[in-house]
């Protein structure tokens, strides 16, 4: 498996301010990071173009709507360029950027998003096993829409737990909430998503 630090990438043809057309060349990820540390605009732009698509999708999961997601993405990349000197090449650059994006996203919401939540698991929870999830043909856009419809607290906990892989203890520390609150929010998020999936399934059938 290729080392992510030495992976070569095609350098994008780009027109920059002043009208210079850069000749295509290949730069490694390490060169990309080094260029960003030196504040070189073309490397920053290349880094952005490479990861912005994925990170925008991440932001879309945390945000209520597209504009909010775009704001989050811009804030996150400004932080990335500010702190890229702290990247040690010990892991994947994408993972490091994703952590900044997620942290930026959850900071957009305060603790009020979670305070109205009652602790405990909703007794009306039904198993999702009745849903033919493996057979459902769902578009990513539909799934994103479902997540966007969740209340802030549900949405953030569901994203952190189900998609980012954090534990409830980590989520509680990140958000400054009780661990039990995190569990409760996750269960309720799943229930709402299940309801939405049922409705979608009904329409499809």
């Amino acid at each position, binding site marked *: 498996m290729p080392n992510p630090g030495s992976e070569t990438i095609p350098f994008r043809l780009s027109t920059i301010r002043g009208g210079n057309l850069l000749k295509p060349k290949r730069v490694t990820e390490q060169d990309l990071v080094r260029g960003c540390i030196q504040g070189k605009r073309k490397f*920053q732009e290349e880094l952005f173009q490479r990861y912005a698509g994925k990170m925008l999708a991440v932001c879309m999961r945390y945000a209520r709507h597209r504009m909010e997601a775009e704001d989050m993405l*811009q804030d996150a*990349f400004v932080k990335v360029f500010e702190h890229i000197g702290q990247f040690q090449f010990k892991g994947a650059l994408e993972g490091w950027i994703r952590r900044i994006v997620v942290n930026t996203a959850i900071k957009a919401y305060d603790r009020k998003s979670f305070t109205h939540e009652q602790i405990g698991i909703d007794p009306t929870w039904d198993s999702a*096993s009745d849903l033919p*999830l493996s057979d459902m043909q769902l578009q990513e856009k539909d799934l994103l829409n479902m997540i966007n419809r969740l209340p802030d607290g549900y949405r953030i906990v569901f994203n952190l737990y*189900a998609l980012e892989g954090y534990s409830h203890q980590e989520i509680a520390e990140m958000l400054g909430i009780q661990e039990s609150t995190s569990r409760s929010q996750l269960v309720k998020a799943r229930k709402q998503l299940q309801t939405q999936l049922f409705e979608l399934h009904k329409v499809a059938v």
Partner: protein
Amino acid sequence: MKEQHPIDELFRRQLTDYQMETPLHLWSGIESRTRSIAPVSLRSLIWCASLSLALAVFLKGDDESPLPAVFPVQASPVLPQASTEPQVPATDEAFLRTEANRQPKAASPVAAPANRAGGETIGISSARRKPARALAASAGTRTNGAASPSSPTLPDKDAHSLADPAEETHAAERSIRPAFAELAPLNPLWFQLETQPIQDFIPGIKFLGERWYASVELGLSQDWRQKILSAPSPEFQGYADARKATESVKSSHTASLRLSLISASGWTFRSGLQVSRTTEWFTQPDARTVNTFHEIDIPLLLGRQFSIGKLDLGINGGAMLNMAFYQKGAFLAPDAEKVVDFSSNLPDAYPAFKNRLGLGYYGSVSLSHPVTPSLHLMAEPYFRYMPKAYTSPDYPLEQRYRTAGIFFGFRKLLGPYWMNLRP
């Protein structure tokens, strides 16, 4: 290991590596927010406004009272020759020109008539006789000590007030004091404004519709200076030649400290302080001394900045406001027979030069290269020119300089990136 819920699995499977199309404006927004770093604060805006106001008052005051101390005779409402001529203000240029046409001109300004006594021995034509007397009076005190500082034809009142300039100053101060006393005391809160972006402090307001960022630039230049000595009147051409033959530029340096405001679209405004020092050789048959000239200027520059690869290219142009011009040294007097000291720190210095030079032109091209994200090395070839003469209007020659050089220094972008982040 975490238990995998089917709904979690569904969303993870389809969304973990999902990518979306990124609109172009997102990068433009990031680019503008990381261009230079610190937003313009309300405090810096207040500083700029205060500086502009102070500058305006300073320059206006200079225009109204150009040379009262150096040329006391000009304050007289009557010329010394006024007994046979219509009375006009002594500073009336038209009158001086008319009088110059009527009076016979000296054959050679440098070869002064021998029968002139005291201050009149400096050989300035009658067209400039009245101010020349003042020049000569000042010069004479250094050369032969025989000249009187005031004209005998002046009215007593004027002669008295001019003979005691300190009293005149005190009287002016007394008249100003009540006005200051009526001013409200300064409110300390005015100076406690945080470095907060103006558009955050007053939501929705952006200067010229853009975000502006700041940087500080420090540069040093070894200059090339061309000295231009010209005689407005042909009779002083010999004197001009004599000075050209005895003086030459030795070296010139300029130091510059500027604050730059850079808009997201590349417009720049630069201002600060520029200090220049020029040394010149003054060569006499038996000695060679050094004359020194200092200038303190405020550049007010507009420009555009572009990114070319790793370089930032800037083109600047604008005005230079001269705040002070002071000098030390000596040169040939207009009669070319003696040497006069024009050092501005001496009370009886030969008053050949202005204290302020007014407005000049400045143009430059700057290139900068980042060393770190917030620190750039900078090189800036420039030229500047003061269209007005460095010499006082009553001195028979006009002395100007054309200056060019290359600033080498650095540009420090102010503030960390997080200052641009929205709360």
